[in-house]
């Protein structure tokens, strides 16, 4: 009987795997044309040479990469980008985790309302939302005037790291909350009750039971947030301005203003590689038994 039981799922699994491949192939095709091909092109461009007259000259050189790592300005921008991405991820997780937990454990009709409140900002373009932040942060803006009224001194937050981090947090938070919430919802609330009946106070039951079980989802949320922050464009462009530079707006600037396609390509590859390496590395932080 055990042999039969052991055999059946394998055959079923194989059939399922084949079906999954069939279902995935159209998406795979689109992705390879729309994503992989341009990516290969960018890699190729990054090895070309730039000339102010001829613009891009076919070549096979690592000069663009060398230029990036040897110029303190660009390295500093990459470092800033990393710092903002880390800060954003930490803040998003700190804010998002309690929200996600509360939301996942809600059963009343308020849940739909709360879910809507979290999803709703996603309906508004991030550029529009940034304009909102600009009104708050700008010289003569709401916060500035309020500070002047209370303390006598103005408080200008525009073009500061704070403004950029706040902006990206507001963009990324819904993704983090929704990702973590869906993971926590898969955890049987009875498991927490069991922990409590065994003498674990709510905080302890959270750390001993919910946290380890939600860790894969929390990690995914963190990675998602980190990637989004690393590649943020509109927010740093509008709230960081010329004073606070991050990678994505800088790449765009090099690409369009300077028409330096090879160097912009190299920068893009460096940004992507950094993000990928850190993302892959972060999964090593999760103990193996908790992984997916």
């Amino acid at each position, binding site marked *: 009987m055990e042999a039969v039981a052991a055999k059946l799922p394998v055959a079923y699994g194989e059939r399922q795997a084949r079906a999954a491949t069939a279902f995935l192939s159209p998406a795979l095709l689109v992705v390879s044309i729309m994503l992989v091909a341009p990516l290969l092109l960018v890699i190729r461009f990054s090895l070309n040479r730039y000339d102010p007259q001829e613009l891009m000259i076919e070549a096979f050189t690592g000069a663009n990469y060398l230029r990036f790592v040897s110029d303190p300005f660009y390295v500093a921008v990459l470092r800033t980008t990393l710092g903002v991405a880390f800060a954003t991820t930490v803040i998003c997780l700190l804010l998002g985790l309690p929200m996600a937990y509360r939301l996942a454990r809600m059963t009343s009709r308020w849940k739909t309302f709360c879910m809507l409140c979290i999803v709703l900002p996603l309906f508004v373009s991030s550029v529009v939302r940034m304009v909102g932040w600009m009104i708050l942060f700008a010289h003569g803006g709401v916060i500035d005037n309020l500070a002047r009224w209370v303390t006598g001194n103005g408080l200008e937050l525009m073009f500061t790291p704070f403004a950029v981090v706040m902006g990206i947090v507001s963009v990324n938070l819904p993704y983090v909350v929704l990702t973590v919430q869906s993971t926590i919802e898969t955890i049987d609330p*009875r*498991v927490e009750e*069991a922990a*409590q*009946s065994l*003498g674990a106070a709510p905080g302890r039951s959270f750390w001993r039971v919910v946290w380890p079980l939600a860790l894969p989802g929390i990690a995914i949320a963190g990675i998602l947030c980190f990637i989004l922050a690393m590649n943020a464009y509109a927010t740093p462009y509008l709230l960081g301005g010329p004073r606070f530079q991050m990678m994505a707006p800088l790449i765009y600037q090099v690409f369009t203003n300077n028409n330096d396609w090879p160097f912009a390509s190299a920068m893009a590859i460096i940004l992507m590689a950094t993000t990928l390496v850190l993302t892959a590395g972060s999964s090593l932080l999760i103990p193996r038994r908790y992984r997916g």
Partner: protein
Amino acid sequence: MSRLQLDRLGKSYGTSVVVDSVSLDIAQGEMVVLLGPSGCGKTTTLRMIAGFVAASSGDIRLDGSSILNLPPYKRDLGLVFQSYALFPHLSVARNVAFGLEMRGVARAAREARVAEMLRLARLEALAERLPKQLSGGQQQRVALARALAIEPRVLLLDEPLSNLDAALRGEVGRDIRLLQRESGLTTIMVTHDQDEAMAMADRLVVMKDGRVQQTGTQEDLYERPATPFVAGFIGRSNMLPGTLTNGMVVAGDATLRLAGQFAGTGACTLALRPERLSLAPAGTDGPGTAPGIVELASYLGPVREYLVRLGQDVRVLVRDTTARPTPLLAAGEAVTIQWDTGAERLFDAADAPMPCLQDDPTEARITHHV
């Protein structure tokens, strides 16, 4: 190991009353089963005892002192859930050790206790497995071992057998009963399954619509049901609404002569146990009889089951359990159904049992809660 008292315990959400003034006194070492259909308030009652649902009124006392204001993690109660609710990321041994860790039991003592519990639950070989690698029955034993490891004052079982297949149910049920009896644990179990309840309980509490219908032993409930609901829920009963006059119940156009003497007249419900009815030749007369015609006859091996029509739309089920190999009666045959005082139960218009004037000294023991 404690005495648990529920004192007029109630729970309502807004205007809807889920549990209505439930009082219960459970002696040390007793196993009490709360039994009722879904939505009868039995699970809410259990969750109030566990502390996951706040009571709206009344009190819960453990050894005389109220536990109502204690959070769940300070109540010292062992809980076993229908879904087992094992910690999926912890091994069997660590699941069982969890409560001891929370109590700060030293490592050596903890390991000894875990080993003892695993041995009691016959899980030694599975100590390092994860819950998902176990069968349902094994998971249930882990849940039980985990709850018992902390030596709880009271054990609470929420539908512990419902997720098991029928073959395992009896076995795990007996395991639970043996462990419970050996450890002398005061236990409350909740179930909707009558057979399960009858097999495991010292005492049963039948609930309906948030109220206790009857509390008593299996025999009390079966022989002396306090309401028509209990008569129909514990075992089976033919329910015949009618009018009582002169020792007869007139139900529709059928007339049944009662076996016992009942005082009073007026609207009533007659409950007759199918297995306590027998068939006699047509024309038989006397107390506890009614004429009828066999409508359906089924031969079920140990039992012959007849649907007998007593009148227009008045039918009773007769389960003939006589050991004699009598031939199966044919449909259409005229018969007389016959019974004695033990088969019948009469309820008045308010669903209260009407006392039988003859004998039966046990009658006085019934507690009626409605």
